[in-house]
């Protein structure tokens, strides 16, 4: 087992091609089980009624949005330190999926908040950080797409992602602190109702489904990126021929 062997686009491209259908299948299967638990097995919540069923996508999406940014920053650090092209490509492949989950977390949060707390939006620390996170994702994607030289795009994006990952906790705690000084304006989202065990299971299974989905998507996207970048290579033409 050689790390650098699998870090080469020529070996990773077919490997990703073999792996992604499995993760897509896991995502679909777990997604169906999670939805079944969420809508059929889980009982109606005593306090919130039926609206709480949004939790089965909202919480997994919020988890994934932060987790993907961390993984992305990890790949960026690897790419900067060891100049491995593949890790930079993985970082770019993860960004759109991360942005998608961030948007979903914000959207479902608004739809959940309106009937439950009577407002679409509050300047709560978590919501504000999530919004800033979306901007960070979009900034990363915009910066990389504005730079034509792929090597510079990789490394500039990496610096930005690392600056962002240092800033997220600072932003979170600054907003939190700011919020405690403006009591009354915010809604306390921490006072969530005690969760039934089935709800927790449904949420965990949905989170695993989201995780598998993110892996499948990033593998597919990294394959497209490899095709874009390695156009001049022999092996790619052969690999594309073999896939046909």
């Amino acid at each position, binding site marked *: 087992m050689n790390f650098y062997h699998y870090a080469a686009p020529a070996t990773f491209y077919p490997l990703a091609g073999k792996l992604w259908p499995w993760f897509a299948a896991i995502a679909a299967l777990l997604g169906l089980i999670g939805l079944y638990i969420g809508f059929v097995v889980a009982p109606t919540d005593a306090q919130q009624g*039926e609206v709480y069923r*949004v939790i089965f996508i*909202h919480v997994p999406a919020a988890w994934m949005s932060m987790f993907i940014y961390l993984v992305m920053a990890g790949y960026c650090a690897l790419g900067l330190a060891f100049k491995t092209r593949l890790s930079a490509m993985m970082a770019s492949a993860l960004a759109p999926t991360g942005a998608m989950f961030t948007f979903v977390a914000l*959207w479902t949060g608004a*739809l*959940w908040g309106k009937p439950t707390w009577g407002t679409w939006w509050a300047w709560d620390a978590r919501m504000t950080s999530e919004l800033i996170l979306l901007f960070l994702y979009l900034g990363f994607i915009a910066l990389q797409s504005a730079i034509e030289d792929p090597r510079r795009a990789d490394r500039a994006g990496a610096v930005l992602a690392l600056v962002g990952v240092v800033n997220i906790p600072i932003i979170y705690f600054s907003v939190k602190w700011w919020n405690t000084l403006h009591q009354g304006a915010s809604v306390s989202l921490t006072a969530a109702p005690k969760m039934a065990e089935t709800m927790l299971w449904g949420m965990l299974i949905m989170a695993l489904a989201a995780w598998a989905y993110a892996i499948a998507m990033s593998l597919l996207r990294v394959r497209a990126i490899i095709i874009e970048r390695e*156009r001049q290579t022999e092996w790619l033409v052969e690999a594309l021929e073999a896939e046909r």
Partner: protein
Amino acid sequence: MNTDFFALGGHGLYVWGSYLVTALVMVVEIVLLRHRRRQAVEILQQEAELAEEITKSNESTS
């Protein structure tokens, strides 16, 4: 299935609004991804054809 299942105690719009939009953005992501791959492959093939033509024309002139 009865209508109660979809009404969800009067909050159906919020719950289904969440799930439908999530499904929608996932579909959009997949469509964009397919498009990206197809475009990359197309450019690659065009370049390959161009390279072939150039070598052919070089052979015919020499």
